């Protein structure tokens, strides 16, 4: 059985402009639209395409989070994942805890490929894939924009500051998806119905026995400093004048 494991995180939808709570304890999440982290959708799409090409038999999605995370797992099943694992917890688990829990899932499922999004758009940590690869002592390719699978290796192109870098890695490996890896498919209504019948297993952190001790404590959440609104000019000449006045032209 050639399995791919994909991480799926429930996050505030990317269109929502979040507001910081006045008491500094966090951001206001009541009634806010939640979605699958967009980079995880890309990760899942890639896994589905690999399976559709016959290079994998099963795509398993997993999420660590509150009960409501099952909505995002159902979306992932509707996109085409075969099976879902929900590690249920109401506490916020920091990246290392998530990676340790995923390592337990990896030991259970034995995937030949694990694909994550390169970052979650809520806490923008961008480290779970790398942490897992490190704990598992396997290759990592972050910010992937192209993935070609061989029998025991993968050739992966990644978006780096200088341009594009290509690496060869032995499998199993951890890949993190960048924006241009693919364009995720839309979920169709019949697939949503079908997804309700697909297996979704709920586990607890205790079942997994993963150490989720905290190393990062949030002291305060505040608003960013605001830029003040500037001036409007009417013509290109005025623009050049304004820039000259600032010594920028």
């Amino acid at each position, binding site marked *: 059985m050639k399995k791919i494991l994909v991480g799926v995180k429930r996050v505030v939808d990317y269109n929502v402009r979040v507001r910081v709570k006045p008491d500094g304890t966090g951001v206001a999440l009541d009634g806010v639209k939640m979605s699958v982290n967009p980079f995880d959708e890309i990760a899942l799409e890639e896994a589905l395409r690999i399976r559709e090409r016959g290079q994998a038999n099963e795509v398993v999605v997993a999420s660590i989070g509150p009960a409501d995370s099952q909505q995002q797992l159902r979306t992932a099943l509707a996109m085409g994942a075969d099976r879902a694992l929900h590690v249920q917890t109401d506490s916020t688990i*920091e990246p290392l805890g998530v990676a340790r829990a995923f390592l337990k899932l990896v030991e259970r499922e034995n995937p030949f490929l694990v694909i994550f999004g390169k970052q979650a758009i809520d806490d923008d940590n961008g*480290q779970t894939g790398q942490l897992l690869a490190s704990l598992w002592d396997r290759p*990592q390719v972050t910010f992937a924009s192209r993935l070609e699978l061989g029998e025991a290796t993968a050739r992966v192109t990644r978006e780096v500051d200088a341009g594009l870098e290509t690496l060869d890695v032995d499998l199993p490996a951890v890949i993190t998806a960048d924006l241009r890896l693919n364009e995720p498919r839309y979920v169709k209504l019949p697939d949503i119905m079908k997804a309700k019948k697909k297996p979704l297993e709920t586990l607890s952190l205790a079942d997994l026995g993963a150490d989720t001790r905290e190393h*990062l404590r949030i002291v305060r*959440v505040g608003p960013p400093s605001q830029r003040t609104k500037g001036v409007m000019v009417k013509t*290109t000449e005025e623009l050049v004048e304004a820039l000259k006045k600032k010594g920028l032209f």
Partner: protein
Amino acid sequence: MNRILVIAEHAGGRLNPSTAKCVTCARAIPQAEVTVLVLAADGAPVAAQAATLAGVARVVHTDNPANAQPLAAVLAPQIAALAGPYSHVLGPSTTFGRDLMPRVAALLGTSQISDIMAVDGDRRFKRPVYAGNAIVTVEVTSDKIVGTVRVASFEAAPAGGNAAVESAAPAAGIPTHTRFVSVSAGKSDRPDLQTASKVVSGGRALGSAENFEILYRLADRLGAAVGASRAAVDAGYAPNELQVGQTGKIISPELYLAFGISGAIQHLTGIKDARTIVAVNKDSEAPIFEVADIGLVADLFQVVPELERLLGAG
């Protein structure tokens, strides 16, 4: 005393400017003693450059043919093996550091603190979340602190240092499961987007790669780097390394000129720290005008040639 280990970023024998910014962040930690670590095939030339940064006490280079390319899986065990005496291990929040530092953190048994934008104490840092729409203050409770430094938040450490340089050979197993194949750097004589003082940037409105050329021409007139929105990159008008924003580059130039960019929050995250933002957009309601210091409601295809002409005359 806090002993800080800064992991140097370099390529082609040259120290990347991100390292000097990490040094400034490191020096903001109380009672900091800063060591820069250079991992390379032949690290002496880069180490010599790092040694001139003001505030660096020591530079260590670890030479190994396996370090010719910055592969996270290869570098991380060597860094972890050398991390013993240090309280903090910092790298830049560039693709180099974002790839590498979490791998180090896991080996040291902690989570990474990502994108440090301010230092509030030995173990207290500020970092952006939700595309910069909130700022969290985080206290790190693990023994070792591993972090990436948001380079746009710190000035580069100036020259003027004269640190001692030594070499070290850590006892670490180096994996062979990850192999470098190639890197295709968009060769350019233009200033580097991440450190340029002026940036000319274009969005979806440019409409084609050919049209994007007008921005390159303007940039060359100004000695500016060129940037792009995600929409422009996705459409193939500009290469990926030009993307500015939450998931591209976070930049802090003196001057950012945005042409035909609407100002989505993911884009604005990348330019919040620019000194002066200029926006040219046909739509007076475009959100970019809310952050622009100077706004002009106009057709960019008219404004860009006019700017070129006025600059030529000027």
